């Protein structure tokens, strides 16, 4: 029975894969069916996932097993209930309190985190003696790092027009950014190819059995 179910699962997976691939030609009924199944099943899956992996272990179980020691959990529970008030139009405004808390906390936490990781660590990594490198190539590399960082930051100045020397410097900055984007593009495309290989592996291996693991 388990084997039959597994085979059915593989066939359904293969048919849905082709249905999704058919979008490469144009929008069609097969794609629409696959899309609706995908959205419906995944929405249901995440709903159940949230209940069993977030609400039950993090809220219900601690409260039911040791209520007095977990009183603090009532606070997020209350905020969650406030969010559900959106379903009642007359009092949907109370959900704003939960949203405000999340937005405010996020802004505060990220301010510190970005300042730490993106600013101070970057400054520290750039404070180098470029001429201390062992060879010419490394020296050039360090100079590029310094020039790229300074001009890149200058590009992101918003309170001054990009003209004259300042504009030229910002232009150098955008060149650096574009070169790094080009490199990232190539790198990420390679990663995407691996996703395609994974699908082909499923079709040719699990489904058709042409290639063996």
């Amino acid at each position, binding site marked *: 029975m388990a084997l039959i179910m597994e085979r059915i699962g593989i066939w359904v997976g293969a048919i849905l894969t082709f249905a999704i691939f058919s979008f490469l030609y144009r929008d069609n009924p097969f794609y629409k069916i696959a899309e609706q199944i995908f959205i419906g099943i995944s929405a249901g899956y995440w709903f159940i996932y949230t209940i069993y992996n977030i609400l039950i272990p993090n809220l219900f179980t601690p409260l039911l097993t040791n209520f007095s020691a977990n009183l603090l959990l009532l606070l997020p529970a209350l905020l969650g209930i406030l969010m559900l008030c959106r379903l009642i139009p007359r009092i949907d405004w109370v959900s704003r309190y939960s949203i405000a808390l999340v937005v405010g906390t996020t802004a505060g936490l990220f301010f510190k985190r970005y300042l730490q990781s993106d600013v101070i660590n970057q400054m520290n990594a750039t404070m180098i003696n470029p001429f201390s490198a062992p060879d010419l190539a490394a020296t050039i590399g360090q100079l590029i790092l310094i020039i790229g960082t300074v001009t890149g930051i200058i590009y992101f100045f918003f*309170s001054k027009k990009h003209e004259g020397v300042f504009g030229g410097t910002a232009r150098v900055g955008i060149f650096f950014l574009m070169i790094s984007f080009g490199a990232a593009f190539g790198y990420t495309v390679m990663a995407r190819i691996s996703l395609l290989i994974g699908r082909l592996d499923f079709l040719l291996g699990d489904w058709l059995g042409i290639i063996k693991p």
Partner: protein
Amino acid sequence: MKIFYLFFIYFFICAYCLLAQEISFTAEDNPNDDGTGIILMWKIEEENVEKIIIERSSDGTNFIEIANPMISDEQYLDVQDIKPNIKYFYQLNLYNRNGEEIISPLQTTVFAKAEWFNSNRYPLFLMTVLLAFAIIYYIVSARKGKHLFIRRISGLETIEEAVGRATELGKPLLFVPGILDLDDMQTLAGLNILSHLAQKVAQYESTLYVPVCRSMVLSTAKEIVKESYLKAGRPDAFNPDSVFYLTDDQFGYVAGVDGIIMREKPAANFYLGAFYAESLILAETGFESGAIQIAGTAMPSQIPFFVAACDYTLIGEELFAASAYLSNEPAQLGSLKGQDVGKAIIIITFLAGIVLEMFGIHFLKEFFTMH
């Protein structure tokens, strides 16, 4: 006499060996913590020692093994159930290769102490104060009526043009706020732009679709769009179904949005927020449909795809600057100007750091390294 000499030489060699063996064991409070860490340090220059074991006790009699580190580590941070203001006894046991104890255990005592301030974070504190001061100063200046100039950001200039085009063609507009939740700054930045866009859509009496993949984003986006219609003086035109949830699943969401793009054929697509692998799928489908596309994200790995497939791309911080640029509100403009001052401080500081490093002066780098 000969025996006396031999004994003297033997005694001298033994004394020398004992003096040459340096074995020390000290413990001190781990600085800059909440009193839950103790640093243990040892120095062992005795060749026979093959293994060490550290034991701890809170009463000085019942010791329990807490670690078996390498001799060469020379220090160990004990964070196992340490509480502040309690006297801990430690002992270091030294064993030879046969597992026999070489000398009696070395003992030391220490109190763990909680510090009010973490001195490693002083650079962070300094930067925060400077940045906060600059932002507050410019917000106050802007509120007093001082004109703050913000340079042109081409992607944002196009918003009105895109809404106008959609209205002329009788087609809707699509706004995708990324795939992360409200706890990501990019989502918040995207939603700020949505507020401005929805206002324009309300003014032009066009149609807007906002598919989302997070429940919190759904509530927030709905609230934002509703308020924008209210601000535009058209609360009756707000359609609550224009902001809708698809699924939390990344590719399920993409499949849904792609379907909307191909079926509804929006005149303009806005992808503003945090994106991952779905960026190119969305942008490519939008390109196929012939829509004007404006994207913005701070995800370095996804910006290239948007640059390649969209008409305008807000790169990194441009996304965060957008709401100030669009709203022209003194508080937001002041904040943006203050951040620019922060950037100037950063450039000056690290250029100074580079010059100091070239002259062999390391204090500035060390100051920031402490962090």
